[in-house]
């Protein structure tokens, strides 16, 4: 994998923007001139199913990762159709976050190119590691503003033996009841009167749970990935009020707090705080990396 070549393309001066497959919505400004557009290295370097780790270039399409890991009954909990680097830099989870956890917990180690064109490695190669500060967390959801991810080691996870969607009529009290009694559902999606549920695990357990709690089978998720233009991030406790007050159809991830919405979320912060400004000053003082990306989004 040509990490040095990538670092050279990022270079030491000028404004540079990084692109994957542009499959995710990223708010950009047109007020900044971009000298160069770069793409991260692509390809799987190493895959160790018995370590539950895969090493790949950040430019590797998620499709390739899925194909490689599927051969060993594993997957990587990164959503969408773009690249590994895109999923990490944007940091938005998939609708099964309740079951598989947030994007940030997937990243074990990252090598990124900093504003001086230098390669920096953060995190560690093993599934467990507390050596030094956890800088890998900072890269997830940073939209490339601290550096451009070149190569990563990701945690893989076993694909469940079975995975099925169900639904049921549900007011909020029924939602709460099911949220309490179902054991680790992979997704609970509520639109105000229907609850869609994904259960992962042993097929007999899934059948038993669906019988016991009166769930009807359904095919797939209740909405398509790109059906909603906005995703609100709210405290899970706010979900019922937000769903009830929505003027257009919405789907909320119960127990997580993501609400898939057609309108933008009001009152997002919009400016970096003091620690973030200092981090930006340390990691990209000239603001040459992805300066066109509105941050925070």
């Amino acid at each position, binding site marked *: 994998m040509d990490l040095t070549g990538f670092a050279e393309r990022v270079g030491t001066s000028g404004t540079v923007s990084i692109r994957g497959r542009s499959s995710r919505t990223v708010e950009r400004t047109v007020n900044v001139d971009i000298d160069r557009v770069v793409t991260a290295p692509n390809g799987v370097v190493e895959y160790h199913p018995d370590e539950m780790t895969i090493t790949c270039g950040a430019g590797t399409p998620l499709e390739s990762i899925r194909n490689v890991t599927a051969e060993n009954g594993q997957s990587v909990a990164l959503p969408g159709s773009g690249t590994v680097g895109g999923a990490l830099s944007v940091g938005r989870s998939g609708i099964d976050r309740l079951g598989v*956890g947030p994007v940030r917990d997937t990243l074990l180690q990252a090598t990124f190119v900093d504003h001086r064109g230098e390669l920096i490695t953060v995190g*560690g190669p093993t599934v*467990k590691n507390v050596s030094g500060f956890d800088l890998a967390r900072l890269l997830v959801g940073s939209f490339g503003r601290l550096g451009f991810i070149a190569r990563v080691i990701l945690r893989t996870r*076993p694909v469940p033996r079975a995975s099925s969607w169900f639904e049921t009529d549900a007011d909020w009290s029924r939602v709460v009841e099911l949220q309490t009694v179902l054991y680790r559902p992979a997704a609970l999606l509520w639109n105000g009167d229907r609850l869609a549920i994904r259960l992962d695990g042993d097929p007999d357990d899934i059948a038993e749970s669906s019988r016991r709690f009166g769930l009807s089978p359904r095919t797939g998720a209740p909405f398509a990935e790109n059906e909603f233009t906005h995703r609100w991030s709210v405290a899970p406790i706010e979900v019922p009020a937000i769903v009830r007050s929505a003027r257009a159809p919405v789907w909320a991830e119960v127990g997580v*707090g993501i609400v898939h919405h057609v309108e933008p979320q009001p009152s997002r912060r919009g400016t970096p705080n003091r*620690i973030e400004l200092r981090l930006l000053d340390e990691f990209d003082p000239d603001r040459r990396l992805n300066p066109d990306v509105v*941050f925070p989004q």
Partner: protein
Amino acid sequence: MTRPADDFIVDLTRGVSHVHRNPIEVSLFDHDASTIEGRAGVVVYPTSLDEVVHVVTTCNRHGRPFVARGAGTGLAGGATPLDGALVICLTKMNRVLSVDPVNRLAWVEPGVLNLDLSRHMAAMGHDLHFAPDPSSQQSCTVGGNVANNSGGPHCLADGVTSAHVLALEVVLSDGQVVVLGGEEPEPDGLDLRGAFVGSEGMFGIATKVCVRLTQNPPTVRTMLLDFTSVRDGADTVSSIIAAGMVPAALEMMDALCIEAVEQYVHAGLPLDAAAVLLVEVTGLAHDVDAQAERVAEIGREHRARTIRVARDEAERALLWKGRKTAFGAVARIKPNYYLHDTVVPRRRLPEVLDEIYRIVDRHDLLVLNVFHAGDGNLHPLLVFDKREPGVMERVHAAGEEIVRASVAAGGVLSGEHGIGLEKRDYMSLMFSELDLEAQAAVRRSFDPSGLANPFKVLPSPASCGDVQHVPEGAWI
């Protein structure tokens, strides 16, 4: 130059009621649970956010370093104060502030004990627990878990502390109070919460923690497999993971450890085994049956002699007691121990264990291995009698070789104890100078003053002070 100590004390006592200066009492805070001795100056026990802000602001005004600590169970010297630093002991801030059992989160103060949090849930009738379960969980605090990004046997399936902390209220070194992260899943901006967890007290002081709570599993099956070779045990671990299972826990003990534990807890461990594996599978009934059956099958394929399944909660508790009290059991062999903590790729476990036995033999020491095999997290326990002349040198030399062997095998310096002072000067085994500079830059961004727990984690070239006092017991 700092002003005379008296002004500092006078200023301190203006805003915090518990200030301790008695030399005998203060000396109890000279170290954590590591062998590294430091020197505490004054000890304060704040009881509120306002008191923490006052203490930190006062330290800032006087240019005094401070070290936050909980129960002091850390093993890497992270909470060892150097050169008379002020110790901020947070054990009096120990309230569970709120619990949302439906969304499974709770706000707690940093001094809440790890196990008390799960007990609190049980007492409230909630079928929930706090997943990180370090062996010290009866006495370690949630704040300490945050500082060290603590693990434990059950972190194999559920992740270490970072995966169980949603938000933090933090007092920065200038006294400013910030909230990092949030109950919402994707707060705007950088994941400062994630960076703070595991920062070993060097980014600020957490005064409130929003933790994620985990459902108690409806079915638990605990199994003990025994082997006549360590390699068979280690290969079983790799095969279980490769077969698509992530058991709730996957722990291993070697022969000397089995012997010590058995004499201590009488759990019926096979005294002639080279290794035992403690495997716990949890979940819904059918899933647990299927996994347990598969684990047994894999064990047999790797020549497991017996496969014992705990019949009831009492037997399960006994097997776990054996695992969790292993460190107490060693006292029967030698009066002192030094517990190490490195991680290696699972597939390298057999060869690294062999190497550890060779290293320890070379230094004429004894080692017990009891560790989180599922995630390759080794815990070689060197046992010795420190009254034996020259033994400490051998212990440190062997320790250094073990750390180097682990990193050389593609592993890391620490899986859960952290870097602190113990492994500070080994950071360059894993990180380049530029990598370490980046870590120092993050530290500066959180704490430009450098007063929060100075001289830890980052090796000397990356720190800036003129105090480079290296306490006895550090591996320098």
